[in-house]
């Protein structure tokens, strides 16, 4: 199934793009997706951790992704 992935902050630099359309298998959880990204973009290992948001809300590791979800990679924030 197709999902859109958005990168922010340092992850944009590490991956080299701000947005990607990706084809992933059904029954993919956030943790599965993080592992998939790690293989596809080893550069992401350069940061200790990042959060994931699905459709503009923070998502737990066990959330199942759905077709057409917008998945955002959120490195440690530094607003204010």
């Amino acid at each position, binding site marked *: 199934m197709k999902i859109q992935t*958005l990168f*922010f*902050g*340092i992850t944009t*630099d590490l991956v080299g793009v701000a947005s990607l359309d990706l084809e992933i298998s059904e029954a993919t959880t956030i943790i599965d997706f993080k592992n998939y990204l790690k293989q596809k973009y080893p550069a992401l290992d350069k*940061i*200790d951790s990042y959060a994931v*948001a699905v459709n*503009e*809300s*923070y998502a737990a590791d066990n959330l199942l992704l759905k077709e057409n979800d917008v998945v*955002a990679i*959120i*490195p*440690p*924030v*530094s*607003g*204010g």
Partner: protein
Amino acid sequence: MQRTSIKITKEKLDLQECYNFVEDDSCGGIAAFVGTVRNDTQGKEVKQLDFSTYKPMAIKEMQKIADATLEKFDVKKIAIHHAEGMLQIKDIPVIITVSSKHRKAAFLACEFAIDTLKETVPIWKKEYFSDGEVWVNAHP
């Protein structure tokens, strides 16, 4: 009555606007936090800061903070405004104002709102030095 004002803008933030929004006849005080761009990080001179945002989500997270603040503290109104784009030393990236009947609640609410913003709102700053640039907090 609108009790929260949330904004992310490329324009210069306006303290008067945030103040006017929270003014209320029933309130005995207004607390304000104004963030400003500092000229150094750990002894290294900062030239400028670039703020980028995941805007639709950042707006939602800021709204959540405003709603939680009204829920948690005895306060009347809150404004949370954040800037995006390139800012220079002394420029203002964030303003939070809170009005309340009594001062203590306004101080506590203001501190809670800025502390939470720094933890949850998807906004990132990049520091520019004379010899390069660094994403802040990226390597905690």
